[in-house]
């Protein structure tokens, strides 16, 4: 990686500096694979795989979306199916006090307060593309904690093959939960390998500010190579388990919102292919890229699988 890439604004990073990154990461695959296998041992090498190594992974043409855009165009069915209405409705959320229960197949289950979690793990900036299955995308400067950092502390057992995430269920605050739009509470899931991947973060803020309510305060998942609906908001429970969790959207329409839901321009659901997308703020559509442009980092997770039929 070119020296100081992390410390520079993205418009100062040249495309020529970005290409070598993929080569750079190939050397790191060993560590990531080790992490992906769920090896719980706390070696210093694993630590390196978890944090601080990913850089910004931007593609030429990527520009940060504005705070205004990011906080006024939100899919958040707990409030409304209207993306423009969420910012106003979500003002009642009250993201403090908030605690998260980490439970299931772990040696040390715990319930941790959000502020304590942030103090212990010092969130890092991660600039990611977010691709929504509705056909739009954004570039967002998240602040977050690599999920593997958190999971490593609770020591997953050998039976932990999946990680289930459950969002807050509170119809008093979440107006949208008063209607059976989806099966509440919102539930999502990852394989343990995906959860331990260093790109996967629990985001606690964006643009250097605490997570805005409408973006899923106080803590949400961000999995940049999957469609946005995988990145569950307002998490209260993280459960490690042996069975694949039944996710909310896959119950609404299994074919369109599968468990894996990797960004893939070759796959088509009921509303057609995902071959193009609108970058928020732009009028002309862009071509969608496999794994949302993170293939170099994540393709190895699906080695040996037919990615075009992995729903």
């Amino acid at each position, binding site marked *: 990686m070119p020296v100081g890439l992390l410390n520079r604004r993205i418009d100062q990073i040249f495309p020529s500096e970005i290409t070598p990154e993929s080569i750079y990461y190939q050397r790191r695959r060993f560590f990531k694979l080790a992490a992906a296998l769920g090896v719980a041992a706390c070696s210093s090498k694993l630590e390196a795989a978890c944090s601080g190594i990913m850089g910004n992974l931007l593609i030429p043409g990527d520009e940060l979306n504005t705070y*205004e*855009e990011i906080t*006024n*165009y939100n899919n958040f*069915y707990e409030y409304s*199916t209207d993306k*423009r209405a969420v910012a106003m409705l979500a003002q009642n959320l009250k993201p403090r006090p908030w605690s998260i229960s980490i439970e299931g197949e772990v040696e040390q289950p715990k319930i941790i307060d959000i502020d304590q979690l942030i103090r212990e793990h010092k969130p890092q900036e991660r600039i990611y593309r977010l691709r929504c299955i*509705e056909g*739009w995308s954004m570039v967002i400067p998240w602040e977050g904690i690599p999920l593997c950092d958190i999971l490593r502390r609770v020591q997953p057992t050998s039976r932990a093959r999946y990680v289930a995430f459950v969002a807050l269920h509170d119809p008093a605050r979440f107006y949208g939960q008063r209607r059976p*739009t*989806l099966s509440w509470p919102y539930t999502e899931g990852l394989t343990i390998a995906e959860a331990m991947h260093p790109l996967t973060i629990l985001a606690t803020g964006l643009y250097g500010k605490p997570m805005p309510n409408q973006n899923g305060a106080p803590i949400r998942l961000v999995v940049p190579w999957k469609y946005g609906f995988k990145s569950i908001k307002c998490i209260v429970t993280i459960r490690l388990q042996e069975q694949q969790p039944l996710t909310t*959207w896959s119950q*609404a*329409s299994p074919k*369109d919102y599968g468990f894996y839901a990797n960004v893939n321009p070759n796959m*088509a659901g*009921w*509303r*057609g*292919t995902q*071959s193009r997308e*609108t970058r*928020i*703020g*732009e*009028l*002309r*559509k862009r071509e969608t890229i496999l794994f949302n442009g993170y293939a170099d980092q994540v393709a190895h997770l699906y080695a040996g699988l037919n990615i075009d039929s992995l729903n």
Partner: protein
Amino acid sequence: MRVSILTRSIDWASLPARALRAANQRYFVLTCITSLLAVLPIAILGWDAANKSLGPNPLERLLRAPGRWALILLLIVLLATPLRRVLTHVMRKTGIRYGRRLADWNWMIRLRRPLGLASFFYAVIHVGWYVWLDLRFNWDELIRDLSNKPYIVAGMAAFLLLAPLAVTSTDGWMRRLKRNWKRLHFLIYPAAILAVLHFVWLSKEGVRDPYDYALALAVLLGYRIVALWLRLPEIMESPGGEAVDGGVRVGATERRDSNVGELS
């Protein structure tokens, strides 16, 4: 021939010329007001576009707003006949003074033409912007969309069905097509169904919006089916009758009579 009070219409030909002119002037003013109201949504969209305030997803807004207005106006066109019939009936039953006179809106039936044309105007913008702004005139992309997006097929079909209706909306085409004009304009029903299907199919699970439109259309079509079943007169409103500027041409009265007879 049965001519119920519901279907009675003014015998334009026998009215004095002054009354005729006044009626036509009223109709002209109404058409102007309707047209102005109908272009309001596109004016707002244009204003927002000029001020770069189309919101975070301008393409989505530019595509969706005209599509929605095309559908709304189409439903208003389909509302004219049932609304007039039902209001007249209610007024007659309740016996409110001047009630029937207030309710029996001949002008509403006549406004279906400008409203229908406005609907098609928005449909043209909707499809035009889709081909231009979304597809960038990439015809391969259009073929791809048609082959794997059912909602695009439904929407295109609705548009193609509306096109001949817009073209033949003039007095001249009415005259030329005679009774086939009405047969042709029956296409508004399948077009409306396809337009609603288009909206339902493109929307995500959990979004209630398109189902409101589906319900509205179901009520409007349901009324016609029930009315046809009960043999209520002039259910499939004869646009050839009242929509024509009957007072201007000789022979309009005759045609209207024959329409009534046909449906009674």
